[in-house]
C-alpha cells in the first residue's frame, strides 16, 4: 500500500528522513566516483555535514582527491546543510520542497555546496536514465541498498524481525561491483572494504542488469532466485532475513509526497 508522507507518524517521518539522508549521501559519494564531472568538483578537499533539526544521526560527506566518501557523525570542516525538520528533510530529499539552512564554517563551503547540489541531481538522474548502462547503475544501486539497510534498521517496526535474523557479514556481488554489510543484533553497518575472509553469506547477481532490476524493485528477488539470476550461498537465514528488511526499506522509498498541508 502506497503511503503519503502526510500520513506518516512523527516517528516514521524521522526514520524516512534518516533513510533519505543516508541514501542521498551514499549516492552522491558513489556518483562522484562514476561521473568525471563530479570528480572534478571534488578535486579539492572539503567536508559537508547533512542533518535535520531534532534528528539524530547526521552524516558527513568528505571529499578529497576527486572522490567523495561518507562518514557518520558531526564536525564537518566546511559547513552544514541543516533541514529545518525531519519532514522538510524527507520532503526535500524525496524530490519535493523543504526548508534547509546553509551553515558555512569555512570558505570551502561554496565548493561543497556546488558539489552537493550537482551530485544530488546527477545521481538519481543516472539511475533513471535508460541510456546509462547497467554497469554504471549497479554500483549506485548497490550502494543505495546497503545504505538503506543500514539506516532502516533503526525503525522499531523491524526489531522483532531483526531479532530473528542471525548475526553475520553478507557480501553482495553485482557483476563487477561488490559491497558488504554486517548485521549484529538490531544494527547494521556497511563495511568500508570487502572482507578478506569468507563472509557468513553471499548474495550474487548474475550480472549488473539483474542487479538493477532486483534492487530497483522491478524483479522480485525470490523469483530471480528461482530463475538462477540471483544466487545465495552460506547462511541463508541471514540473506533471506535481509530481504525482509529490504522490503521495509522499499516501503519507505515508496512513500509519496502527497499534498502539501498548510
Amino acid at each position, binding site marked *: 500500500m502506497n503511503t503519503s508522507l502526510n500520513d506518516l507518524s512523527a516517528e516514521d517521518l524521522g526514520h524516512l528522513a534518516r533513510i533519505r539522508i543516508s541514501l542521498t549521501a551514499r549516492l552522491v559519494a558513489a556518483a562522484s566516483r562514476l561521473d568525471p564531472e563530479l570528480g572534478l568538483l571534488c578535486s579539492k578537499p572539503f567536508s559537508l555535514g547533512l542533518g535535520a533539526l531534532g534528528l539524530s544521526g547526521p552524516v558527513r560527506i568528505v571529499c578529497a582527491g576527486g572522490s567523495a566518501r561518507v562518514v557518520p557523525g558531526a564536525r564537518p570542516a566546511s559547513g552544514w546543510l541543516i533541514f529545518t525538520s525531519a519532514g522538510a528533510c524527507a520532503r526535500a530529499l524525496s524530490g519535493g520542497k523543504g526548508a534547509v539552512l546553509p551553515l558555512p564554517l569555512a570558505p570551502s563551503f561554496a565548493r561543497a555546496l556546488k558539489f552537493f547540489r550537482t551530485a544530488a541531481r546527477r545521481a538519481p538522474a543516472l539511475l533513471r536514465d535508460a541510456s546509462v548502462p547497467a554497469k554504471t547503475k549497479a554500483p549506485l544501486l548497490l550502494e543505495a541498498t546497503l545504505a538503506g539497510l543500514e539506516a532502516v534498521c533503526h525503525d522499531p517496526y523491524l526489531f522483532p524481525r531483526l531479532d530473528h535474523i542471525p548475526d553475520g557479514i553478507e557480501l553482495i556481488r553485482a557483476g563487477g561491483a561488490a559491497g558488504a554489510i554486517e548485521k549484529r543484533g538490531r544494527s547494521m553497518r556497511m563495511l568500508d572494504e570487502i572482507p578478506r575472509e569468507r563472509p557468513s553469506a553471499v548474495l550474487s547477481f548474475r550480472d549488473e542488469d539483474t542487479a538493477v532490476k532486483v534492487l530497483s524493485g522491478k524483479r522480485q528477488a525470490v523469483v530471480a532466485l528461482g*530463475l538462477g539470476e540471483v544466487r545465495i550461498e552460506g547462511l541463508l537465514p541471514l540473506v533471506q532475513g535481509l530481504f525482509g528488511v529490504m522490503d521495509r526499506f522499499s516501503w519507505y522509498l515508496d512513500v509519496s509526497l502527497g499534498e502539501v498541508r498548510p
Partner: protein
Amino acid sequence: MTGRDTRFEHSRQYFERAAKVIPGGIYGSKSPGFLVPGHYPYFLSSASGCRIRDVDGNEFIDYLCGYGSQIVGYGNERVDGPAMAQIARGDLLNQPHPAMVELAERLVADIEGMDWAVFCKNGTDATTLAASIARADTGKQMVIAARGAYHGAANWCSSNVFPVFVAEEQRNVVYFDFNDLKGLKALFETHRGKIACVILTPYHHPTFKPQEFPSDDFFPTVESLCAAEGAHFIMDDIRANYRLAKGGSHVRFGAHPRLVTMGKALANGHPISVLLGSDALRRTASSFFITGTYWMSAAPMVAALAALDEMERLGGIPRLEAMGTLLKDGLEALGRESGFTARVSGPPAIPFLTFDEDANLYLNQEFCAAMADRGVYLHPHHNWFISLAHEVSDIDATLEAARVVFRDMAARRG
C-alpha cells in the same frame, strides 16, 4: 538454474508461469531458495517407493520423503488401495465414517498416556488446537517453546514476524534454547502464574542446524516445572512420529506429555493430523467447537489404519534405524576419508548431515547440490527422512555418489 541448463527446463518454465500468478512462484518451505537453485527440480510429477521424478523426467533417490510424510514409500498399494476404494465409496460425507472411531481407538491404544483423539488436516491445526485447549483449561495465556523449533505456520508460532502479530498473537509465546534448563527455569520464574503450556518436539530438529537430543534431565525438569505451575506439556510429534517409537516419540525419551500432536507419516502422505490428549484434558476438549470442512474425510483415516499395519509389515522402526545407521555411518566415514568432519545428527531414521568446520552451511550446499546432480535428493538445510521403501541398494548407491562428491569437494578445497 542457469540460462544454459536444460536439465530442469520444464521446471523452469512452470516456475516462470507460477511467478506471474502465485506470490513468489512457489511459497514456503518448497520455495526454490530453500534448496540450491539450479541443482534441484521445482516441480515433481510422480514417485514410487523411494524414487521421485520431476517434470523433466529426472529421477532421484529421495531422502526428504514428502517432508517426512512418506514412511512406507510413495504409491504403496496396501495404503493407497483402501484409500482409493473409500474415495470411490464416498470420502467427505455429512457425518463421520466408522473409520474415525477405529483410528481413534487404535491410536489411543498405541500412543502411551493418551486417552482421546481429535482429527484434523495439518500439523498447524493440531498444534494450534493443543495450545488453545491448554490455554482454555488453565485460563492462562503464555506458551513456552524452544527457539528454532517449528510448530506450524499459524500466526502464534510462525516466522511471519510482523509487528501486528508480534503485538497480538506472538506476544504470549516466549522462547528458550533447547536443553537450556537454566533458561527454561528463568522463564517459569519470570512468568509465574501466567504459563498455559510448554510445547516441545521430542528432540530438537531446527532447520539450518545440527539436530540435538534432549539431555537426561530435560523432560523430567520440564514436567516438574509444568506440574508446579499448573501448565500442560505438549509434545509436538508431527515430524518424528513413527520413526522413533511406535508408542509415540515421547516414549523413546521417557517423557510424559498431556497432549501429543501427530501427522505426516501417520497416513503415509494422505492428509490427516491428530491431537491426542490425556483424560485430564478431556472435559476442556469436549467443550471446544472443533471442525473443519475436510477434517472428517474418511479416506485419510482408512489410509492411516492401513499405513499403521503396513509400517509393521515392512519392519517398522528397527528397519528404519538399520537403514539410517547404514547411511549415517557411511557418510561420516566417507567424509573423514576426504578430510571433512561431516557429522550426521539426529536419530538414524531422521538424519541430517552438517560439517563441523562450516557453521554457515557452504559445504552443506556444495555437498547436497552435487548429490542432487548425481540423482540423490538430500536437503541442504532441513533434516532428511528414511522410509521403509529404502533398500540397502539405495543406500549403497547414495554412498557411492557421496564418495565421488566428497573427493571432488576435497580436490576443490586443495
